[in-house]
Every structure is written in C-alpha cells, then in structure tokens.
C-alpha cells in the first residue's frame, strides 16, 4: 500500500475512534465496530492489492489502532484496556510477521518491537495526563506510518 493510502488509513482510524467515544450501549457499540471493520475491509480492498499477503490483516491492524486510540478516552480501567488493545495489535502484527517469515518474505520485526515497547511502557503509567495521551497517539501514529 502506498504511503498516502497508509496515511489515509491512519486518519480513518482516528476518525473512527472519535466516533466510538460518542456511542453508548453494548448493541450500538458493537454495531458501530462492525461497521468500522466493514469500512476497513472495503478500504483495504479498494486502496491496496489484497493478493499481497501483508494486506490480509490490514483491516484488523486498522481496528487495533482504532481501539488503541479509543482507550485513551476511557475513564475507568484505562491502563488495563490500553495494554489489552496494544496486545491485540501486537498479536495481529506477530501473526503477520510469522506468516511472512514462513513464506520467506521481508518481515517488519522493528514494528513489532516498537509496539511491544510502547505496550510495556504503558504498564508503568500511573495517572495518564492529557499530554501523555496525546504523546501516545503520536507514538502509535509514528509506528503506523514509519515502521
């Protein structure tokens, strides 16, 4: 996927996260999440070549980034859910890396290490201030764009 399409995907994730913040109720949130995954799949299918193995999990990587950004807006158990969202992202990336490794293609281990590092760092955070929230979102975007 091109750099521009990747940036648009990142922007979409931020918009989706902002949208989920406003929704309440189990059914509504699930419906919105369903629509988000559907949009991610459609975006990936149109913006990239889905025959390329890396893009198989691209919609779920987008979902993981959306969830990570979404957790910064939580009021309770924020640290726990932040770490869980990043673990989900890590798991999706790890599967991607392993499958690429098995097929003998180039594997983005650095991205994996960066996500693991940020998730580990989040475990040490006590009260998360607005500035740290912003810093985390920037870090995640940097991982998404540059690694």
């Amino acid at each position, binding site marked *: 996927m091109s750099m521009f399409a990747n940036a648009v995907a990142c922007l979409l994730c931020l918009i989706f996260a902002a949208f989920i913040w406003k929704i309440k109720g189990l059914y509504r949130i*699930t419906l919105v999440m369903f629509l988000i995954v559907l949009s991610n799949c459609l975006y990936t299918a149109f913006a990239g070549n*889905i025959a390329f*193995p890396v893009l198989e999990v691209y919609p779920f990587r987008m979902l993981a980034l959306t969830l990570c950004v979404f957790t910064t807006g939580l009021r*309770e158990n924020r640290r726990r859910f932040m770490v869980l969202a990043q673990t989900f992202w890590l798991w999706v990336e790890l599967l991607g890396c*392993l499958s690429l490794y098995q097929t003998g293609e180039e594997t983005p281990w650095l991205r994996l290490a960066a996500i693991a590092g940020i998730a580990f760092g989040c475990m040490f955070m006590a009260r998360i201030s607005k500035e740290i929230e912003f810093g985390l979102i920037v870090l995640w975007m940097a991982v998404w764009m540059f690694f």
Partner: protein
Amino acid sequence: MNSKVVTIVFIGLCLLLLLSVGGSFWDGSFDLLLHNSENWKFPKTLFIFWIGMSQAGVLLSAFLLVMKVKIHRRTSLLLELCSLCSYVVAIALSLLYSNSIKLNSDIYNIGIVGFISLLFFVTHLVAADSAEDVSLCKNLAKIRRPLACFILPTVFWVVSEFALDFAQFENSLWQGAFFPLYVVACVFYMGLASTIALLSFENYYNRLIERFILLCSWFMSLLFLWLMLIKDSGSIIAFIFACVVPQLLLFEAVRESLWGRLIVVLCIFFGVLLKCDFVLYLDDFHLVSNVSLANVSLMFAGGVIFVFFFFGVRILLSRFFENDEILMGEESDSSDGEIPDAEERKYYAPFSAPEFKVVRLPVLCGVLAAVTYGYFTSDWVHLAGPFGAYVGCLLVCLQPFAHVWLSRKGKGGRK
C-alpha cells in the same frame, strides 16, 4: 440439572449410533470404521472440530474472567469441563485413527493447554468447595484470575500456531496472516455456542451470552466474507449455517424458545464442521457428497463419548456445580453482570494490583524457563511460550498451598 433430558439425549445418541453402525453394514462402509485406513479422511475433519472445541470452553471462561465480565460459577465450570471432555474425544479419535490423523509438534502445545485447563478447572472446583479448608479456598479463589491471565495468551498462541502450521504443512492456500486470526475467532464463537447448549441442560440460560453470540455472528460473517475475498474460495454452506442462521436470534420467538436456541446452536456447530471439512478439501460439498454411514457413526460416537464423560463428571461433581457461593469475578442472580463492585473500582498504582503480586514471580520463572528451553532446543516459535506458561501456571497453583503451609507453621511456632 435436568437428569431426565440428559438421559433421553444420551439414549437417543446411543440409538442413533447403533442405527448408523448397523446401516454401515448395509452401505458397505463398515470396513472404514474397523480399519485404521489412511484414505478415510473424515476422522481428521472431526479431530480438527474437537480440537477447536477443546480450546473453546477454556478460552471463553478465561476471557470473561480477565475482562471482568461476570458469569455464574456454574457457567464457567461447564465451559471448562466441556474443554476437558472435548480433549478426551480428540485423543480417542487420534488414537483410533492414527493413520488418518498425523500429529506434529503442535500436539505438545495442545497437551500443555490441556494440562493448564485441568489445573484451572480443579482450582475452580476446590475453591468452590465449602467443605474444604476455608483459608485454602480463599487463596485458591485469588489465583483464578492470575491463572486466566496465563491461559488466555497461551490458548491464543497455541491456536494461532496450530493454524499457521496447518497452513504450512497441510494446505498452502491458507498461508497468510489472516487464517490464524480467523481460526481463533471460530474457536471463540464455538465457545459461545457451546455455552448456550450446555446451559440448556441446566434449565437455565444467560441473556448476556446470547447477546454475545448474536453480535459475534456479525463479526464472523465479516471474517467469512473477507476470507472468501482474499482467497477466492470459501464455503457458502458453512457461511449460511454458521453466520446467517444465528440471525434468527433477533426474533424474540426464537430467542425465548429452548428449541429455537438449540437449533441455532446446532446449526452453528454444523457450519463449523462444514468449515473444518472445507479447509481440508476446498470443496463446499465434500462432506455432503462423500457422506457414508461410517462418517455418521463416527460423528455420533464422538457425541456419545462427549455426553458420557461430560454428564458423568457433571453428575459426580454436582455438589460443586450447584454450590451457591459467589466468588471473585462471578455474579449473583440479582446482578446483570456488568456493574463493577467497589473493590474493582479501586485504583491501583502500576504493578501493585493484587493479581500482579500473585503472578510476578511465576511470570519471571516462566520467562526464564521459556528462554532456557529456547536456548537449549533452538525452538523459539513452537514450544518455548507454552512451556513458560506451563511453568508459570504450576508456580501460581503452588502459591496457595505455600501460603497455607507457611501460615500454619507460623501459628505452630507462636504456640
């Protein structure tokens, strides 16, 4: 538990098994049942299905506990027992049809998860037993969530690894990053479906799980369709059974009727079984077009073994299942299961939560064990992680006994 219904189901399954075995003489497929033939592939389909079931119960139980979604102890015990009994069926199949079911190193991972599941189940049982030592019960109750924290990533890893290896060695079409994710989602979905089925025998049903299954079916539909899009092949019939039929739960008449719920759950299981067949043969109609009474017999035999062990253990241990005490992470009848209590709302500084204090030493030892194992065997991908989890779980389970022993020793010393 409704013993009458269980008896009827068991006798019904036995009769169907006898009929199908008898029928297999008529259609000439009886030889397949007796001989461990390499050409008969249906045992492999069933083996994959039962291996999925064996991960499903414990995965769901641990997931709900880690996410602090409160469910009755009975529900989580049933799920854990369902996992263990599914292991029995999978082991029986692999022993009887070893030529058809070729096992690789993944079986050690699955064995480790089986052992950890057994620890999880036994811990839960003993913690629920009011006749036991009270301090031991309290200490065991405290390690439930830490154990779940070990089990959840281990099951995720083992199922993903199983799927990756299946794609690499069995059918290269499934190679890619999405297939393991899809398999884990299927396993989770099977866990939800089995909860509804098992609770039906208890004359009891959980609206939260029913809502989860409906919501999960939407995501499963997406995953099915995405897989069809990226691989250019997919099982339409499996999609209809596993994803379209559960939408009937949107109608109150189906949702509120026991038979309605059971039919939906059976359709989900059948859909997953069709999918298991599809990932092996890439033919939507393979299972239907190659149907023989030997296949049907084997399917019913699996059902009979499962029902026998599951309800046998359930009846033997009924005093644990029907214990009305409420433990951490579980709910009373009056609560809806989503309201956190005062203890859970309490803020803990990083690395100071009670669960962390329980897991810190076992995690450290587990990581050391995994690194040592990986260093000496050079197997970092397959067994290192599960081996670390195995060591960690053992140490977590030993902690309550060590606490009780130390406190008794302290009291003895003061006297």
